[in-house]
């Protein structure tokens, strides 16, 4: 599951090389959303700091 954003961005690079700008932007956006979801799933412990 952690590899999903990498393969999404790899497909985005493929679209760039193929001249598909819109598809590349879409794949970038999806990859960033997946990244943020994974970030949320991994950051579960509270920080021991005072803000």
């Amino acid at each position: 599951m952690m590899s999903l954003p990498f393969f999404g961005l790899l497909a985005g690079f493929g679209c760039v090389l193929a001249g598909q700008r819109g598809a590349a932007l879409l794949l970038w956006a999806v990859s960033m959303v997946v990244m943020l979801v994974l970030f949320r799933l991994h950051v579960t412990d509270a920080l021991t700091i005072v803000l």
Partner: protein
Amino acid sequence: MTPSMARTLNAVGLLAVSLVLIAAFLDQVLLGELPCPLCLLQRVGFMGAALGLALNVKFGPHPGHYGVVILSACFGGMVSIRQILGHIVPGTGTYGSAILGLHYYSWALLVFGAIVLGCAALLFFERQFAEPEATPARASTFLIAMTVLAATLALATGVSTVLECGAGLCPDNPVVYELLQGPNPPRP
């Protein structure tokens, strides 16, 4: 700044981001330091920034492409800040080895900041957003080579992440490549 100059500058930026990812990958392969989940997410931030630069290289400079770079760097920087805060209190440990006094996540935050500042500075050169000029053949080869290099790094990092974490989430402190580990011996 002409559009072709901006494209070449973006290709140089793409090379710089690729070098950061190559350094992290070499550390992983040669020194055996497995990346933690947050380290991997920071690499995603770098890859996202690289994709924005590649869009500028291939289709010509566009404010939206710089937006892709800046947003990716902000997301990656957010992960870096979270990891720095997790270790900021003395005595709470660190992850990985330090380079020139700073750990990877601290360097990553500095590089993400530099990416944002660099893109913000480039956005002031408005002539680059004019109609793209025809680029010389040699420059085109360099531009495409940089994009292929970044795509190859995305593939290599994706495959290594599959080997490290399998199909699920990565452990917080990975010590082995899950898919390269042999089957567990039967219990007596």
